């Protein structure tokens, strides 16, 4: 079992601090990284992959700095970047063989592994088609397949479900869940529901900082007592939208059903609701914004 640790990790670009003092430890299991656009998730993942040198702090694998481990660390690593580049004129099979060559996998092992992964990702029938003819979802599946080629012990996936349809997302979640038992998986996403059913641990980032960290029950307890459901008129709904964080809004008949994040009951007749991960996320986000506004 491996352990991936960051210690006060910091990265700055010119005047902007993309990641500030982030510390956490990952062990076997699925860890979800939640954050808005520009929160620093991609920068953090790039530092974990050794693609960016941190300006402060360090990334340790089993107690050793990953920069010192070099190729030895990259042998353990599988990475799917958010912007997945590929050679358009390569077929899926040729591209996976190319990635296998980059990962220094012997041909016989690579061929067997590629067959396995093409079947796993449902691309066996499309293996000889050129990548430029693939849909976005199919390309994402090729990306997932290449990340798994070397049977990585540390899998880092940046927005892996982007472009996948619901059926593909379910298939992908099930795959990750089975893989997470004996390896470290870190995945970033905007789709909170992707994490709810498979993540063992959640990290929340905002403006480069880690704002919350814990198991899903621990994260949900953050939002406990702050989630309300109510049914109001359209006029009241419009007013509430201006003054509160709305998790969900649904027109029903002559009223509007709302799910609201608030410290106090937002409207007459509002009842407390069990928080979901998305509610906790909105609560943390709103809390941070209020603290900044207060400063």
């Amino acid at each position, binding site marked *: 079992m491996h352990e991936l640790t960051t210690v006060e990790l910091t990265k700055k670009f010119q005047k902007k601090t993309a990641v500030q003092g982030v510390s956490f430890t990952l062990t076997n299991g699925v860890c979800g990284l939640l954050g808005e656009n520009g929160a620093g998730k*991609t920068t953090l993942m790039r530092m974990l992959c050794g693609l960016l040198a941190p300006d402060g702090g360090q990334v340790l694998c089993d107690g050793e700095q990953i920069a010192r481990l070099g190729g030895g660390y990259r042998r353990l690593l599988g*990475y799917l*970047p*958010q*912007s997945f580049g590929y*050679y358009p004129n390569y077929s899926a099979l040729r591209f996976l063989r190319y990635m296998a060559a*980059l990962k220094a996998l012997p041909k016989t092992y690579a061929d067997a592994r590629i067959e396995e992964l093409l079947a796993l990702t449902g691309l066996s029938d499309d293996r000889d088609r050129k990548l430029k003819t693939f849909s976005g979802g199919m390309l994402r599946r090729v990306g997932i397949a290449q990340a798994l080629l070397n049977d990585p012990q540390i899998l880092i996936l940046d927005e892996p479900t982007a472009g996948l349809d619901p059926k593909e997302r379910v298939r992908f979640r099930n795959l990750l869940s089975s893989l997470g038992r*004996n390896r470290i998986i870190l995945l970033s996403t905007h789709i909170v529901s992707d994490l709810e059913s498979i993540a063992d641990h959640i990290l929340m980032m905002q403006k480069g900082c880690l704002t919350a960290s814990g198991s899903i029950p621990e994260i949900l307890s953050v939002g406990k007592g702050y989630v309300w459901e109510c049914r109001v008129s359209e006029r009241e709904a419009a007013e509430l939208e201006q003054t509160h964080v709305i998790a969900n809004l649904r027109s029903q008949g002559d009223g509007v059903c709302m799910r609201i994040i608030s410290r106090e009951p937002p409207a007459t007749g509002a009842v407390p609701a069990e928080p979901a991960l998305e509610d906790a996320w909105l609560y943390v986000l709103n809390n941070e914004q209020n603290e900044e506004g207060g400063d």
Partner: protein
Amino acid sequence: MKKTEFEKEISRMFQDSRVAVDEEKKRQTFCLLAGVIAEQKLVPRMSFPERIRTQLYFVEWRILLAQLLCMLLSAAVYVRADLPWIQAAPYLPAGIASVLSGMLLVLACNREEASGIAELAASCYFNHRQLAALHMVLCGGVQLACLAVPAVLLGKRMQVGAAAMGLYLTVPYLLTGCVEFAVLLTGFGRKSNFTLLAAGCVMAVITGSAATQPELYEPAALGTWIAVFAAVLAVYAAELAAVLERAKFVRMQAAAWEQN
């Protein structure tokens, strides 16, 4: 494998049910063993010769074919010794071929950046710098062989020694490389190959113009050629090092900055 007496005794004990097996503990032990085996599972490594052979398979063959075409065309031109423009500017075809070769080498090495695969490649066992260097060595080796053909034909025609002919072809090759690397370092060429192609065409025009000046190829000018070669080689090496170093971090930083 033949069982030892001890193993046979153990088997008999279990068959006789003298040792009761706790099913729950059996399941736990099995899970534990599976975990240990999974941890120790070793992905086989590739031998060094196999690494080189595999990378050869993925060299950009279109670029090498273009290189071969350059060589064949320039050789074909020299075989037709009676063409009037060849007699007027004999160094022109070989000069153009060496410029195009210099451009093709940089194109071959920039393909990962141009296709957007550089970030993914950098996270693999072979890092981007190692790959770029390996591709340069492989492509460069093929190019040297290809340029030797027009060099030999031209050398025989002009009664010029091998060393001088090497200078007349290597200087435009390296100079083109310097210009192409400069384009890469400024960022214009990194994402698209068209800027690199345009720079190559400009160099071909400049080299073509120089090739029509016979005084440049007189023996008296050899000293100048040697000095230019030394200077251009130093710049080429420095720019190559800068390109490979930039590939390591700065490009990633710039891309990350743009994204955030």
